[in-house]
């Protein structure tokens, strides 16, 4: 058994929480720069420029890209030959978040659903565990803002809806979201699986760097097709009109029940904050 101490895990999560919020990912930054060339609206261009400038300031001044520093989500793939020492794993994740949000002066954005009372330390966090072969622990750690998350949707479509029905639903969801998720957005799509699995697929689809091809060639075509439709809506940067409503559409798909066609659409704003941590 390979041992991994909770101390190391806490430190890495803490550092990542801060870095994620201060440093816009390189792939997003270059995608915003590419978008500048394709945006026709003057207002749209100005917005993209402001976002690029914002990323520079945040990195330099070590202050968050966005004031909504997000709800923490960790998707953990735990190797079967790994042994965690020094405490339990979930508590280590939460401790890392607690320390990172405090030290980084990040905003605590977790509250009771009804009283809206803030829990004060950005916990509890959301954790999904999976067991895999090997002696590594791999974490996908994301900080998700509320504005774009609120516009995400899940549909249990009739199988007859097919690809055409799926495409329509995605575009409709983006249209209805309008300016709220701070476009330009990145659209994560999960097709198939079950009710909850489709949402997880949509989230995982967002963990592919922008500008990389989907390994499944069937999905490459689908992604291009939906992106083109989305960018015809005219919503544009910040919803103020323009060509670039979304930077990319990323799809993950798996088989589903013979009577279902689950579809989850995870709308991610340009402040896409996630990282892969491997121990």
């Amino acid at each position: 058994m390979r041992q991994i101490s909770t101390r190391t895990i806490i430190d890495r999560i803490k550092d990542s929480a801060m870095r994620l919020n201060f440093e816009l990912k390189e792939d997003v930054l270059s995608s915003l720069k590419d978008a500048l060339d394709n945006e026709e609206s003057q207002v749209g261009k100005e917005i993209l420029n402001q976002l690029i400038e914002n990323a520079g300031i945040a990195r330099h001044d070590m202050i968050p890209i966005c004031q909504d520093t997000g709800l923490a989500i960790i998707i953990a793939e735990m190797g079967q030959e790994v042994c965690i020492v020094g405490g339990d794993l979930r508590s280590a994740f939460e401790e890392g978040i607690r320390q990172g949000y405090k030290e980084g002066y990040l905003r605590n954005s977790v509250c009771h659903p009804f009283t809206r009372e803030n829990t004060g330390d950005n916990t509890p966090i959301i954790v999904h565990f999976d067991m895999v072969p090997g002696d590594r622990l791999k974490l996908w750690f994301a900080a998700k803002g509320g504005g774009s998350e609120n516009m995400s949707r899940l549909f249990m479509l009739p199988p007859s809806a097919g690809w055409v029905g799926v495409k329509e639903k995605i575009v409709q969801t983006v249209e209805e979201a309008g300016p709220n998720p701070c476009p330009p957005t990145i659209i994560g799509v999960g097709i198939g699986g079950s009710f909850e699995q489709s949402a997880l697929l949509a989230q995982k689809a967002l963990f592919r760097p922008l500008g990389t091809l989907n390994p499944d060639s069937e999905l490459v075509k689908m992604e291009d097709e939906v992106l083109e439709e989305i960018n015809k809506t005219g919503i544009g940067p910040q919803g103020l009109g323009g060509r670039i409503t979304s930077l990319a559409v990323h799809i993950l798909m798996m088989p589903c029940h013979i009577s279902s066609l689950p579809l989850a659409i995870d709308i991610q704003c340009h402040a896409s904050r996630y990282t892969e941590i491997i121990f």
Partner: protein
Amino acid sequence: MDKVYHLEAPLSIEDIECLKIGDMVDVSGYIYTARDAAHQRFLKLIKEGKELPIPIEGQIIYYVGPTPAPPGKVIGAAGATTSYRMDPYSPALLEMGLKGMIGKGRRSNEVKEAMVKYKAIYMASVGGAAALMSRSIKEASVVAYEEMGPEAVMKLKVEKMPAIVVNDIFGNDLYNEGKKKYRIN
């Protein structure tokens, strides 16, 4: 952009009557922050006939809940929050002479009608450009509801804070017009 209009807050009607949707502005002077919880309290005070903790006439309210200020900084990241949550409260403030609102996202028809009636504008600042906004904030002090943390009401001294006119005093809406202009059928 070809032209940027400079606004000095507080505003007079002359400052905003020439502004149209899509105009880029930069805002300097003193503005106030408030989110929904603060608006709710304002409205309660208005109903009770009591005085508000901030002046309203001619003022600009910025919808923001910043991150905590790190040591040596005036304020943390301070980008706009979604405006529709303020919609139920805004008409009453517009009636009292509020001249500008800065946020992100669409406003309700009631708010838009009140903007035409009482002559006020709504501006969008780029959602998620919170570090950029924070840089244009030179002073920040809590003036009310300190116990509400990021929802407290603050007075900000701003210098050239960038924004885009989304609703002008003529009843135009850039969210509608912009989308129409770039839509491909």
